[in-house]
């Protein structure tokens, strides 16, 4: 599996499971467990782009594509720093 396929697959499955859970949560929103299902779906959905970046980084490492590995590591660091700064603020 190349980098593009791996990234695409990780994005697709995180998203599909997230959307399925959110849809189920909407259907069962009258019940107590509806909200919990929606939260689970939301966490998966929100995390999917970041999971995609991590999977890309891992695959680039496997391909020994040093330049782009460095780029993806810097991006991961910037994203984490951004989140920490925003949460603190």
């Amino acid at each position, binding site marked *: 599996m190349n*980098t*593009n*396929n791996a*990234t*695409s*697959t990780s*994005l*697709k499955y*995180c*998203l599909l499971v*997230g*959307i399925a859970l*959110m*849809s189920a*949560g*909407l259907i069962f*929103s009258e019940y107590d467990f509806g*909200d919990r299902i*929606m*939260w689970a*779906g*939301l*966490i998966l*959905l*929100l*995390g*999917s*782009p*970041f999971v*995609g*970046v991590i999977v*890309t980084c891992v695959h680039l490492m496997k391909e020994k594509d040093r*330049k*782009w590995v460095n*780029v*993806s590591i*810097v*991006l991961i660091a*910037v*994203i984490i*720093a*951004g*989140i920490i*700064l*925003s*949460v603190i*603020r």
Partner: protein
Amino acid sequence: MVILALISVGLLAGTMGTLFGVGGGILLIPILTIVFGLQANEAVAVSLVGIIAASTGAASHYVRINLSNVRLGLLLEITTSIGAMMGAAFAMYMENWIILLIFGLVLIYSAVSMIIRKEKIIEQPDDVSDMCFSYTDNKDYKTKRYEVRNVKGGLLACTAAGIMSSMAGVGGGTIKVPLMNIYMHVPMKVASATSSYMMGITAFSGAVVYFVHGGLLLDYASAIAVGAFIGSIAGTRLSRVLNSEPMRKYFSILLLIISVIIFLRMGGIL
């Protein structure tokens, strides 16, 4: 009934966003605040979830068929994210109307440039460069090569796009797509697809903050996300039948409409 209406709004924003590589926030935020009566910060939070659903749905398809340039997206996203952080800090010290005015003018300039200038693609790239890429056009299934130029300038411009989008509270796709196409010579379809991939990463950082602080309306966000996801599927299907040149024209029209919305917002009408 409200849930069905929200799904429809998500569907519209998802289709438009996927087709043109913009987030759809510029559509979602006014609709959520005006029609559904949400507070601005609630609308932004719900819109970010919708953007993630639409852009990730589109990106999973575009990345698989090699239309999104993942490497270029990762690179440009670094400075976009840094710009977004800077923008969040600047926003505290600058008047909102000044930000919106600059943003509106940039959009008009981009739209006019895309209408006037012909698409310039380096089709016979220098193979030594590590910025040479190829993609398969999903209309005629031919593999086309291109070389990304002006990378340093593009990175700087993406910082400005990040600052602007963070300050104006909209996605950076409206700036990044013309930037990649006009300045960096990335083909229009690749620019839109790469922007879709980047959009999810940008929105993720913003959405996490709302998630942590508990500012998300769960049922609204879920309904918009479901609609935006379906819209992203429709958008990717539509992009198969569209040529690059008309897409540039449609995108320019979209930019002009968005700039009008921005000026209306500036005038307090929206």
